[in-house]
């Protein structure tokens, strides 16, 4: 199942597993997993390509990470470049440079990226901290706290997809929910938040916000409700 082959694997063995089985953690060059696989222990590699139903009992670390299907990580997951298609569930923290999301993300810990883009939904129990977030919500986007340089959230087109999600998960409205959102440039719609603090803030239709504190600019759609608005700074 493991073998020394391929270039650019830094002298580490590659791991290739398929079918229904267990794989052993450790340090690898390139990892390719297809099927229904349980990875036992922490695993670290240059690149991951996962297909199917994968579960790990430890943490995952990589340069590049691609996942199609469902993934459940018992520890934390960190990879510089990430592409996630499907359902991803991480018990610890999720971190990296770039995340392209197409599906649903559920993170127990904090989530840190320089750039997040794509579509789907997320549920972050901790702090979602990113340079820029540009997402089309097909399901619910939820985080305790969001801290960003720029945040751009739109509701995905009410396509067949959203109907499927709603059918799968009853209260699955494509809306953003957060306790606190803080950032330089915030542009959201269909958002429920206790507090939004930012320099330039745009609140789109369908939003209900407790309090907005803005520095330079605030735009509010007539279809949004804001209980209290405060201009801060000079």
């Amino acid at each position, binding site marked *: 199942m493991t073998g020394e082959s391929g270039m650019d694997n830094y002298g580490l063995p590659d791991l290739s597993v398929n079918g229904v089985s267990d794989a052993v953690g450790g340090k690898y060059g390139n990892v390719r997993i297809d099927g229904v696989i349980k990875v036992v222990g922490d695993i670290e590699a240059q690149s991951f390509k996962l297909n199917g139903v994968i579960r790990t009992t430890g943490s995952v670390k990589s340069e590049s990470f691609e996942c199609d299907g469902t993934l459940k990580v018992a520890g934390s997951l960190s990879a510089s470049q990430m592409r996630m298609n499907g359902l991803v569930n991480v018990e610890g923290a999720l971190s990296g440079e770039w995340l392209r999301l197409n599906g649903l993300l559920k993170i127990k810990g904090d989530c840190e990226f320089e750039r997040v883009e794509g579509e789907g939904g997320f549920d972050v129990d901790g702090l979602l*901290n990113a340079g820029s977030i540009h997402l089309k919500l097909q399901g619910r986007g939820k985080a305790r706290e969001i801290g*960003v340089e720029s945040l751009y959230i739109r509701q995905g087109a009410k396509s067949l997809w959203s109907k499927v999600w709603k059918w799968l998960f009853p209260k699955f409205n494509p809306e953003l929910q957060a306790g606190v959102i*803080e950032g330089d*440039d915030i542009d959201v719609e269909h958002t429920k938040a206790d507090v939004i603090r930012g320099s330039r803030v745009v609140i789109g239709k369908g939003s209900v916000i407790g309090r907005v504190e803005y520095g330079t600019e605030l735009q509010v759609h007539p279809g949004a409700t804001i209980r209290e608005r405060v201009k801060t700074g000079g």
Partner: protein
Amino acid sequence: MDRDLISKKELLDTTGISYGQLYRWKRKQLIPEEWFIRKSTFTGQETFFPKDLILARIDKIVNMKDDLSLDQVAGKLSPLLQDYELRKAAFVERNIVSLVAIHQFAGKDPDHTVYSFEMLLYFYVIDKLLQTGEMTMEEGERLLTVLRDHFPKFEGKPCDLIFIRKMGVSSFLLVSSDAHVYFDNGIKIVAKLPMVELIEQLRGKLI
């Protein structure tokens, strides 16, 4: 014993940085996780910072970031200088620690002995307490053993050194900074030193 805290909003107002910058620096680990203190207030959850530490740190980042990339800045800020080494002779020349202390605690080491940053830190801490006249030379010896044996166990996480005395008998404690410690009435706290600040001070003198 509580440190002076500053709320996030006050911090941004006084320093003029933005939310985005603050979160960016947190991601780059320029500001340690432990400094983000979440507290409930009447307006809901708010984040506070240890005032002196965060103001000094932001001042440093702002000054450095013009010439260096954020990753380079991060390297300069990590609490302990990982690869820093200094020969004894050079250390004596820099005049960071008094000659008396060096003579007492490093007297047996030849001039070409190479000290790690941690070791320099121990000398610095001991010298500091000796200078204030709060600690005797023999106690210094004991403190050196305590630091050597236990400080590395914190692995760079913030901790405080507490120096207590009761009926003339002295003791040293190393406790993590977020811990609460209470003593009986007979105990006199001679000194409580946040190691993070001492590390910063020593780094400032070395670099």
